[in-house]
């Protein structure tokens, strides 16, 4: 199979409709600097904006999404080649560059297939319909007498082949019909998500590539070193910039002594605006050195100190909320608790966790030709383009973002600080500027997943039935950053161009489907003493608060099961199977299927937790947790070993039953789930942002530990489930799969620790000293 690179190399330049260039990885970047603006938005209502077919019967799909290393580009090619009826190997996919691909929002919310896959399928189906009409005209036959396979249209013979008087079938390829020419077909739809032609989608049972696992085309260039990423981009005349961050949160830059770096080799310029400070040099190592040597005087703030991370949950519980949310209530919770025979109560703490990408933030901005081209791995490249235009107050047609591969950060680049910084510096200097953050900057100043303190109460009646569940969350989510907003990214804060009022944030409620007659969820958002110019700034970290909420709720369900002397799987199934009058039967049926599939794969032995106390230093146990996100359902079982002397927890085995509807690429999906599960293990066992009263102190891989190869499970089983009540329906939907697997992992592990030891860990992460302290308490 050809890689995208090889494919595009051989396919030549064409694509008049989308900017006069076909794109190979090499060609786009070489020629990009020459392509002047203005950069007009590709029109999603033109079929030519989405699909180009060449004379050699190959096709390129142009989609407004970004692939963060989960193989979505390959999945797009699978679904679009199926609807178009062209060979998968004869297709390629261009993604996320603002002047080339329609604005589908980039990545976020695991919506690539669930939402954006549908317009992609519809436009491909429409292209097929138009091509068949062209073929019908060409042959002078009705379109109904044509068949198509792998981009070759065949006139169905009027007499059977081989019969007397039969002639060889007449055929023509898509490439012969339209290669090099435009479709010039207008689509309809009130927005890009609703883009459609008049063709109908195929029944999913007729899709040939969907459900198979062609290799991800992005992988070979990642393995042979040939891939050029945003971080690798160079353009003539480029300089390197490094930031100098405030030494403590909220510090004011009083003065800068440029003479401290002016005589360094390669020095170009110091740029200062407000509290933003950067230095630029001809070479990268020179810029790094200059940023270290640059003398600057900062004034520390007199107010607005943080509570240190060791005191943070006391702060979170005692501080008056910025606001409280509307409760979500079913039944009469207070009455149920008043008449309860037994009440169970527990508190759960989840700290700030960072994205801590393996590759610190970076971008290259090129102001040549009075335009601004940003080479970026921004998952939301369209937002970066719009944000930069507003931030610099230049026409958006002057700005484009060329999206390229980059280090995954699971939400970090939704607030793409480096993209704005590179644009700002290039605009100031009039030369191309590449910026990359240091490890300490990235670990300290990246956006954080919000911390939560969650209280849960449950009430049993005299017969032992769970009759009420009461949930209250306090979330440190004040000033949750938006998507590349020109007035909330860090440089906007530091240069004094930020908005006045911070975003309100939210405290999320549970999304399980348990049938409990009386339920209440309440939540409030707790402010921090310092709102702006602080490294404790909230952003979307993979899910963005599902792991926190699910840790609490699914740990608590386990506590209730233990209180009821029930097996944890049985207890959940009973709550899922209970009859209710609400409308979540669809989700509930799929939840039951996943819980059962996970238990079966694991070989779950039915009994209550904790198990009979074992002797010996290392004890083992298993725990289950389940969750859904949008329409995707997962149930996970963890088997752990706990060392009672050291407190070390090893997740020995993981089982994940996963239902995301129609599976496009099982191998790529399974790897994505395995990786997400381990991200969940890392966040369960290791990850936490540490800070003193003034600054984040987890600034490298020693102070900010992460899962390593040493601690991976010896076995992971992923079970792909289709729990749809009508599993063979022709319109079986494809749901998202990028995040849901992360939700139940913390709870599954905590429940397994309880099963093994009889001790509840209610504070994430379960680092060895904390587990040891809990065992000894």
């Amino acid at each position, binding site marked *: 199979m050809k890689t995208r690179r090889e494919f595009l190399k051989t396919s030549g330049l064409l694509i008049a409709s989308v900017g006069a260039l076909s794109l190979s990885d090499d060609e786009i970047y070489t020629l990009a600097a020459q392509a002047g603006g203005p950069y007009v938005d590709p029109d999603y209502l033109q079929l030519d904006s989405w699909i180009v077919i060449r004379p050699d019967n190959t096709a390129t799909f142009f989609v407004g999404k970004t692939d*963060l*290393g989960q193989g979505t580009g390959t999945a797009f090619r699978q679904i679009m080649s199926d609807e178009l009826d062209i060979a998968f190997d004869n297709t390629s996919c261009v993604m996320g560059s603002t002047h080339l691909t329609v604005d589908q929002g980039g990545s976020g919310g695991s919506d690539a297939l669930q939402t954006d896959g549908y317009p992609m399928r519809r436009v491909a189906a429409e292209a097929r319909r138009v091509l068949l009409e062209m073929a019908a005209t060409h042959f002078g036959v009705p379109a109904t007498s044509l068949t198509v396979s792998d981009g070759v249209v065949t006139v169905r013979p009027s007499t059977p082949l081989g019969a007397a008087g039969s002639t060889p079938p007449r055929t023509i390829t898509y490439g012969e019909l339209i290669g090099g020419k435009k479709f010039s077909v207008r689509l309809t739809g009130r927005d890009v998500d609703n883009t459609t032609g008049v063709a109908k989608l195929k029944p999913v049972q007729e899709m040939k590539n969907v459900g198979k696992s062609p290799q991800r085309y992005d992988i070979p260039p990642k*393995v*042979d070193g040939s891939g050029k*990423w945003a971080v690798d981009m160079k353009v003539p005349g480029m300089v390197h910039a490094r930031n100098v961050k405030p030494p403590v949160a909220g510090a004011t830059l009083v003065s800068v002594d440029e003479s401290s770096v002016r005589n360094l080799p390669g020095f170009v310029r110091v740029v200062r605006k407000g509290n933003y400070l950067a230095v630029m040099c001809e070479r990268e190592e020179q810029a790094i050195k200059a940023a270290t040597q640059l003398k600057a005087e900062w004034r520390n703030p007199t107010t607005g100190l943080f509570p240190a991370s060791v005191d943070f949950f006391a702060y979170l519980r005692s501080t008056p909320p910025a606001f409280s949310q509307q409760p979500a209530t079913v039944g009469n919770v207070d009455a149920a608790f008043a008449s309860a025979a037994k009440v169970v109560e527990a508190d759960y703490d989840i700290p700030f966790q960072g994205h*801590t*990408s*393996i590759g610190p933030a970076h971008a290259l901005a090129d102001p040549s030709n009075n335009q601004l081209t940003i080479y970026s791995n921004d998952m939301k490249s369209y937002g970066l383009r719009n944000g930069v235009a507003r931030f610099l107050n230049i026409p958006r047609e002057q700005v484009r973002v060329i999206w390229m591969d980059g280090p995954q950060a699971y939400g970090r680049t939704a607030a793409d600080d480096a993209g704005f910084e590179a644009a700002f510096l290039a605009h100031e200097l009039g030369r191309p500027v590449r910026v990359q953050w240091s490890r300490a900057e990235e670990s300290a100043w990246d956006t954080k997943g919000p911390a939560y303190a969650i209280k849960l109460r449950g009430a049993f009646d005299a017969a032992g039935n769970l009759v009420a569940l009461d949930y209250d969350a306090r979330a440190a989510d004040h000033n949750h950053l938006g998507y590349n907003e020109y007035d909330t990214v860090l440089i906007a804060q530091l240069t004094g161009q930020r908005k006045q009022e911070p975003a309100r944030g939210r405290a999320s409620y549970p999304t399980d489907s348990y049938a409990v007659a009386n339920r209440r969820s309440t939540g409030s958002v707790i402010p921090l003493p310092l709102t702006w110019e602080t490294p404790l700034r909230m952003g979307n970290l993979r899910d963005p608060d599902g792991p926190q909420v699910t840790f609490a709720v699914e740990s608590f369900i386990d506590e209730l099961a233990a209180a009821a002397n029930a097996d944890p799987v049985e207890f959940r199934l009973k709550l899922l199977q209970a009859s209710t009058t609400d409308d979540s039967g669809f989700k509930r049926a799929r939840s039951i299927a996943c819980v059962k599939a996970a238990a079966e794969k694991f070989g779950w032995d039915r009994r209550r937790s904790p198990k009979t106390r074992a002797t010996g230093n290392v004890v083992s146990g298993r725990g289950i947790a389940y969750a859904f996100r949008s329409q995707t359902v997962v149930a996970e079982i963890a088997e752990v070993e706990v060392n009672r002397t050291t407190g070390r927890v090893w997740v020995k085995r993981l089982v994940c039953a996963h239902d995301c509807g129609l599976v496009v690429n099982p191998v790529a999906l399974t790897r994505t789930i*395995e990786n997400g599960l381990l991200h969940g293990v890392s966040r369960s066992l290791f990850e936490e942002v540490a800070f003193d009263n003034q600054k984040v102190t987890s600034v490298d891989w020693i102070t900010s530990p992460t899962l390593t190869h040493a601690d991976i499970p010896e076995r992971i089983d992923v079970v792909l489930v289709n729990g749809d009540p009508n599993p063979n329906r022709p319109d079986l939907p494809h749901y998202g799969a990028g995040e849901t697997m992360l939700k139940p992992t913390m709870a599954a592990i905590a429940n397994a620790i309880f099963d093994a030891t009889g001790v509840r860990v209610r504070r994430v992460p379960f680092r060895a000293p904390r587990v040891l302290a809990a065992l000894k308490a």
Partner: protein
Amino acid sequence: MAITLLVNGKRHTVDVDPSTPLLYVLRNDLDLSGPRFGCGLGQCGACTVLIKGEAVRSCVRTVAQSQNVEITTLEGLAKDGRLHPVQQAWIDEQVPACGYCQNGQILTAKALLDKNPHPTDAQIRDAMKGVLCRCMTYYGINAAVKRAAKVIA
């Protein structure tokens, strides 16, 4: 100062400060983007290169220390247009997610298998534990190392 480096079988002379970390010369002067900047502290392994068969962190090694030794980067692993068995195993197992760290994973695995063609699971864990992956592709990496070991043996 003129520094001579022997990289992937070719000799290069660059005029840089001898204290420059090897990483930046490989990336910016020799246009080899396999090694990537991850921490600059020698903690993560994204910048790994092979020097005399050892997996070395090019972010904390100066160019001056790197003269007169054979340096191999990810780009130099394939021979005569054929991927190294470790690289092929990485594709066969569909290992990479974002891929940023995979340079270090692949070269560290190669260094391991060169010395120990039949590593146990415990030896793989120990040899690979210093190369971090924030996409957490470790399970696939573990499978790919074992697959490559079978091919090489």
